[in-house]
């Protein structure tokens, strides 16, 4: 069981390493979107500090969605998705492996680079730490929710747009509590309430999303 999980993660991370351009695209998108705002709205530190949590979270959200299309589409096209479904373990386990790999490749780099981006917005140190924690809890959740959308649109033409429509509404709670945590912390308040809710959402997502994704994959492969 652990071996299956390990090899799914290994396979997808190895594929990502072979195609570094795809990984870099997500990261650059995040950096560029988040950096355009200070240039666009002008260098007023107070305004930037107010806008920072929302901008950083929206940028992370869009960047995470950018890579969702590839989660199952390529495996579907070359026939390896069929082989993954036939793995003699619960399909949800394979899905967890793919989501973990997706997060390692597209979520974790964002989390790691976010403190540097946050400096552009003149966020206080406490808020940067909160941002790091919130993204650490929130980005895996984005990958989990996104996987459901990606599985539902496997083999659908123009699936990319459809994924956004399916997934964005579900991203809203993550956005609200993620940005809320950073907001609270920037104003000198306690962010642990927001972070706890994000943590609870992550646990809920871990418990439900892989099964929903597995069911969606089975339907898409019929």
């Amino acid at each position, binding site marked *: 069981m652990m071996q*299956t999980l390990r090899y799914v993660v290994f396979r997808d991370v190895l594929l990502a390493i072979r195609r570094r351009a795809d990984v870099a695209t997500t990261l650059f998108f995040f950096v560029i979107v988040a950096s355009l705002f200070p240039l666009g709205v002008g260098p007023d530190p107070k305004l930037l500090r107010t806008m920072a949590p929302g901008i950083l979270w929206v940028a992370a959200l869009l960047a995470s969605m950018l890579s969702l299309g590839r989660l199952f589409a390529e495996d579907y096209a070359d026939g390896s998705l069929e082989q993954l479904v*036939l793995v003699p373990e619960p399909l949800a386990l394979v899905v967890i492996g793919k989501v973990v790999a997706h997060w390692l490749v597209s979520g974790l780099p964002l989390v790691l680079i976010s403190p540097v981006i946050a400096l552009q917005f003149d966020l206080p140190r406490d808020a940067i730490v909160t941002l790091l924690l919130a993204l650490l809890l929130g980005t895996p959740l984005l990958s989990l929710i996104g996987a459901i959308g990606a599985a539902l649109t496997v083999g659908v033409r123009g699936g990319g747009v459809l994924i956004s429509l399916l997934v964005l509404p579900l991203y809203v709670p993550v956005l609200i509590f993620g940005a809320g945590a950073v907001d609270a912390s920037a104003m000198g308040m306690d962010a642990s309430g927001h972070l706890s809710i994000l943590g609870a959402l992550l646990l809920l997502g871990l418990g439900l999303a892989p099964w929903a994704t597995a069911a969606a994959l089975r339907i898409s492969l019929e």
Partner: protein
Amino acid sequence: MLEVSGLGCLRGERRLFVGVSFSLRPGGLIWIQGGNGSGKTTLLRTLCGLTLAMAGEVRWGGTSIQLLGEAYRRELTYIGHANGLKEDLSAQENLLVAAHLVGQPVSRAEVAGALQGSGLAGREHLAVKFLSQGQRRRAALARLRLTPPRTLWLLDEPFNALDTHAVAGMRKIMENHLSQGGMIALTTHQDVAIHAADVQTLRLDA
């Protein structure tokens, strides 16, 4: 033993096949024949459990494959029309990952041996995107050379894109598998004489 009774399948509004029944005993081979679009691939996918049957049942050892789930998937190797290889990985990596995923913990040496047996010696470390169609097919079929083999092989057009030499090699592998009590269900348009004690043919567009 694989038993299929009264299997029927629809594709959209069209009836692909109905009332397909057969049973496959250890050492048995079933050759599924039919024209293009007669439902051969759908039948094989139904036998794997990838597609749900509209009517009828597939049983393995007397139990429905839907109930068996993982226990059934542990008994079979399915090689579909698509090769299921990742273009950016080498044949060696593809085979190694595929084997571990289905719970066949093979060593690198075994994988290299299987690829050599498939005529891919010297190409093991080349990314699959640089291989020809025939070489990709050989790499996909190399899974059948790993030991211990799964009991039931479901092969969709296994000889596609293969040259005569590779076809002969595959035929030997299949005959060997059957003689050791394995079972094979395959579709092919090529006339390949596989010698086994128990060979059935099933025509779908009758």
